[in-house]
């Protein structure tokens, strides 16, 4: 940060000395002048007053379209990155982009920033609205070629404007982040800009979906805008998110760490859980974002979208009848179940590499978007721990906020025991998932495929938390705990433990105890699961349920 600041200042001083001669030229010739930036050797032409207003408009527009100039565009491409405008163009339907604030310029007058050559029409962000598959969306795309995409007051103002509009009409906001950070020359104005955006992120939360796609650096305070949005996606190898960069880390904690290790896509999608997905490159990321957008409603006033569907809603899935292994200790892949049940095996998994013991993501049932939550027996037996609880809770709340029905597949042996979990606060983190399921008023359908043990059974969208339809497969075991543990307590000291275990298994390791009490609505053939869920969703589409009035709930954060 300091280094770039110094460079900028010394560059400015160099220019100060040239200012006089330019003035002279202007006064005499009323023509066009050329200012060359010593760092880049690019030549920029600016129109001066002899041009008509119309011509000046054209000039400004032309200048806005090239951002920081061809030289910087080339540099951007060389880094394997697209420009802000290319990204918008690729994200949105052809010719649907309606740009706003193309003429906005920064208002800084310190450090010779007020000079023409330091002004770029539109400043360092492209904003506007457009369509994705015909559906309205507001977009901002930070332009790294202009002052490294740094955030000026004007930049922030542009973003706030489209966010306000998005809130007014009820349409999602997509942010394409590629910014070196605050515009240091602007000082506190830049900080104020961040806060203005943060406030809008918070106000828009739960009103319109907000998505961040990190396509370059995003450091310091800037990271909190993506963190406040609903989904944060990253581009592998070219994007970074961190509070402080490797240099500061080194000076403060003496750790040696690379940018990639500290805040690269891999770190945030597998270790920190900050990002929800990472894509190979800019093009992949933007095309995937279009697919992702198709799942979302435009706002909290819209129902989950229903796309034309070619997959029969009454399709039977015979392979599910044998997917749960005979031995209850053996693992299977919950993704196999999800993919074979949803439309066209099309499952957009969120956070596939983080807290893999729970699977979350979007899919469609008979065309309608649904949110899927499933325990993953393949990883850590599908138990709930701190990370998986938080991962699941945030997803459930998103679905609930945006009217997306939730389908939960349960195979959970319980919460993960141990000091690491207890000290880490599994109690309050586990409570988040419980809270999220309990407060959700969207249609909730639950399928218990195998284990539903202990408190984790309650948590996983059980009947008791207002589950609308709760099914059990014949392999389901709803119980306080597994046979072995239970027998050690119930039959403590009894000689024939094996016999006791068999008795317990016979009594509890099946769906009947829950079914006779009405805690599951039916015991269904696994092969019919898709058919049943599609049918139920149709009925539940008119579900109306409200929670008591409150300012807001107090989820155990």
């Amino acid at each position, binding site marked *: 940060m300091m280094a770039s600041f110094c460079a900028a200042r010394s560059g400015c001083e160099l220019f100060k000395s040239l200012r006089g001669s330019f003035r002279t030229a202007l006064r005499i010739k009323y023509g066009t002048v050329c200012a060359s930036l010593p760092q880049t050797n690019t030549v920029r032409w600016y129109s001066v007053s002899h041009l008509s207003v119309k011509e000046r408009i054209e000039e400004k527009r032309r200048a806005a379209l090239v951002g920081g100039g061809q030289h910087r565009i080339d540099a951007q*491409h060389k880094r*394997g*990155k*697209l420009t802000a405008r*290319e990204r918008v*163009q*690729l994200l949105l*339907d*052809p010719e*649907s982009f309606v740009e706003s604030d193309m003429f906005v310029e920064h208002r800084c007058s310190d450090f010779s920033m007020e000079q023409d050559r330091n002004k770029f029409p539109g400043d360092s962000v492209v904003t506007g609205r457009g*369509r994705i*598959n*015909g*559906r*309205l969306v507001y977009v901002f795309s930070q332009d790294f070629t202009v002052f490294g995409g740094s955030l000026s007051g004007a930049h922030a103002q542009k973003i706030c404007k489209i966010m306000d509009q998005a809130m007014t*009409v*009820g*349409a999602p906001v997509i942010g394409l982040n590629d910014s070196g950070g605050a515009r240091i020359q602007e000082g506190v104005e830049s900080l104020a800009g961040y806060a203005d955006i943060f406030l809008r992120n918070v106000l828009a939360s739960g009103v319109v979906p907000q998505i961040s796609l990190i396509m370059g650096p995003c450091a310091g305070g800037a990271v909190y805008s993506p963190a406040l949005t609903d989904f944060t996606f990253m581009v592998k*190898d*070219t994007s970074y998110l961190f509070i402080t960069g490797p240099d500061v880390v080194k000076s403060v904690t003496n750790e040696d760490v690379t940018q990639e290790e500290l805040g690269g896509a891999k770190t945030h999608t597998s270790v920190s859980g900050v990002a929800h997905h990472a894509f*190979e*490159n*800019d*093009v992949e990321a933007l*095309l995937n974002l279009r697919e992702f957008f*198709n799942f979302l409603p*435009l*706002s909290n*006033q*819209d*129902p989950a*979208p*229903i*796309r*034309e*569907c*070619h*997959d*029969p809603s009454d399709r039977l899935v*015979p*392979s*599910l009848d*044998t*997917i749960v292994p*005979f*031995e209850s200790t053996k693992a299977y*892949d919950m993704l*196999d179940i999800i*993919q*074979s049940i949803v*439309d*066209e*095996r099309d499952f957009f998994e969120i956070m596939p590499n983080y807290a893999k013991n729970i699977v979350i993501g979007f899919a469609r049932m008979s*065309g309608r978007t649904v949110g899927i939550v499933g325990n993953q027996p393949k990883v850590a037996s599908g138990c709930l721990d701190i990370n998986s609880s938080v991962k699941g809770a945030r997803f459930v709340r998103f679905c609930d906020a945006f009217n997306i029905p939730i389908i939960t597949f349960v195979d959970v042996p319980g919460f993960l025991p141990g000091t690491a979990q207890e000290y880490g606060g599994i109690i309050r983190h586990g409570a988040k998932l419980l809270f999220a399921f309990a407060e959700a008023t969207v249609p909730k359908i639950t399928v218990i495929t195998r284990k539903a043990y202990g408190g984790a059974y309650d948590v996983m969208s059980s009947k008791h938390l207002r589950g609308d339809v709760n099914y059990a497969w014949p392999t389901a075991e709803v119980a306080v705990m597994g046979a072995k543990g239970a027998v050690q307590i119930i039959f403590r000291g009894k000689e024939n433990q094996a016999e006791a275990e068999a008795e317990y298994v016979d009594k509890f390791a099946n769906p009947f105890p829950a079914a006779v009490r009405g805690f599951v609505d039916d015991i269904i053939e696994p092969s019919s699961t898709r058919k049943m869920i599609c049918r139920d969703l149709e009925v539940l589409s008119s579900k109306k349920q409200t929670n008591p009035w409150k300012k807001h709930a107090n989820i155990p954060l």
Partner: protein
Amino acid sequence: SLSLSLSLSLSQTFDKILIANRGEIACRVIKTCKKMGIKTVAVHSDVDSSAVHVKMADEAICVGPAPTNKSYLNMDAIMNAIRTTGAQAVHPGYGFLSENKEFAKRLNAEGVTFIGPDTHAIQAMGDKIESKLIAKAAKVNTIPGFDGVVKTADEAVQIAQDIGYPVMIKASAGGGGKGMRIAWNEEETREGFRFSSQEAASSFGDDRLLIEKYIDNPRHIEIQVLADKHGNALWLNERECSIQRRNQKVVEEAPSTFLDGETRRAMGEQAVQLAKAVQYSSAGTVEFLVDSGKNFYFLEMNTRLQVEHPITECITGLDLVEQMIRVAKGYHLHLKQEDIPINGWAIESRVYAEDPYKSFGLPSIGRLSQYQEPLNLSKVRVDSGIQEGSDISIYYDPMISKLVTYGASRAEALSRMEEALDNYVIRGVTHNIPLLREIISHPRFISGDISTNFLPEVYPDGFKGHQLDANQRRELLASAAALHVSAQLRSQNVHGPLRVASVPVQSNHWELCVELGNERHQLEIKKTGTTYKVEVDGGQVEVCSSWNLASPLLPLTINGTECMMQFRVRVLSRLASQLNSHMPEKVPEDTSSILRSPMPGTVVAVSVKPGDTVAEGQEICVIEAMKMQNSLAAAKQAKVKSVHCKSGETVGEGDLLVELE
């Protein structure tokens, strides 16, 4: 034939049969048992507890854990299962205990019928050396240069030199291609001896080997025989099984294009002579090598039902399993040699879970996430023991199914085979359908110009997949583009109450870029109704379909011709394709200094340790998968940096084994 089969099924045989096998052959036997009103007992390993054959049978007994020597080869457990269920007879299928005389003896001792020949014939024909002597005595043509049991590598070299290269080395006890290697010099003889004896030991528990003259460029043609316990024997024509990889059959047909009536009869009669010489009863197969001059040599006799028996059933109309059961019960054959017809033509493709791009097929494992057999087509028979959701595991043979098509002529059977392969949906495991499809449409195959060297001759550098001609490429590109556009249009089709109106892209003209391999093709596409007109590579293609985007099969009408497609091709808009050129190339891994497992399997031996210097081509380790031992060699001369596997460990495909410096 209806009355015939009716009278057959009415003749009393057994009440209950146990099938000592798994997979497709167990299912195949159970089907006939059901037809004959016989109750069935399946045996299975623990991982097979929900397998298709288990579900099909009336009863099922678990005989042990997954490894075959603890379950399907576990005679004690199977004998127990027989006692528990009261099965009166056992059908052994093929492989496993089907040619194990010990098993047949134990059944005899307990008064249980073995559905197969008696132990004397199994023993006589099971031993490669004895079988040749018997064949010679029965005036059956045998391969020259035949010699005895081999105990050491030196002895192997001596024998090979006496016979003259090339020689073939294989296990005495084994059938098929397992444990079989060809050597052209002393070094290869030694290597072949080592591998074959190891494989023989692990597959058959019997490490004896034999070496014989290798006939270059031969055809593999076998005669199906059927004999009863009263000295009657028939030959049921031949099967052409020349299309092989690593000495295992891939595509078979009946009859053979190569045989004339006279040769067929000569082979058939010799096969029957041999069967009679060993008092053979039940179904059996006499394998011959046939050279270009139609000289045929006895290879071996398989004293069991053969994998490829369905094609014989298709052209003769017989149910071989039914015949085996009847014969085992002691009935006379009700047919005479002149009753055995050749009705039309049948072809069998063995569909395997394997990667055909690696030495024509290295095993692959996984879960069949989607699986659909082409049974909607007529004159198609699919023998399989799996279904959607089944796992193909490392423990057993990776065969998915036997796809059989038949017709009045070879051309008809072939064209049905093409259609059937195109309509076959397999997802979740790598499979060999691309190779099968390529073989059956190859001009040499179509003309019948084949030998056991067909695959290495036609694909000297390995199978690289179908090479599209210009027209096919255009059609594929056009179809991919049209599919892409219909998916894009579908994405705009959102129903429900819309608070903010949708503004779909109103266009009937698109510019797209399709990536095929490393090439990018620009194309333009126009839509009218459900038809797309595509300008591609200087030609125009018209593509029409119902565009069901949920189906794995895409029925298309291309320029008026109907066809079925399955593909995965990347389609980008022209803009995306242009911008794609700025995307950084991800550097691929340097494969010369790392060794990854080419398939899932077990590490049997690691021949290096860190710090060793290996020469290019030197063996680094040996992976065993599906009973095949595969030697992995160094790609360059280098020092071993690290070893990531140890003997006995299970490894997955792509797992890092050894790093070189």
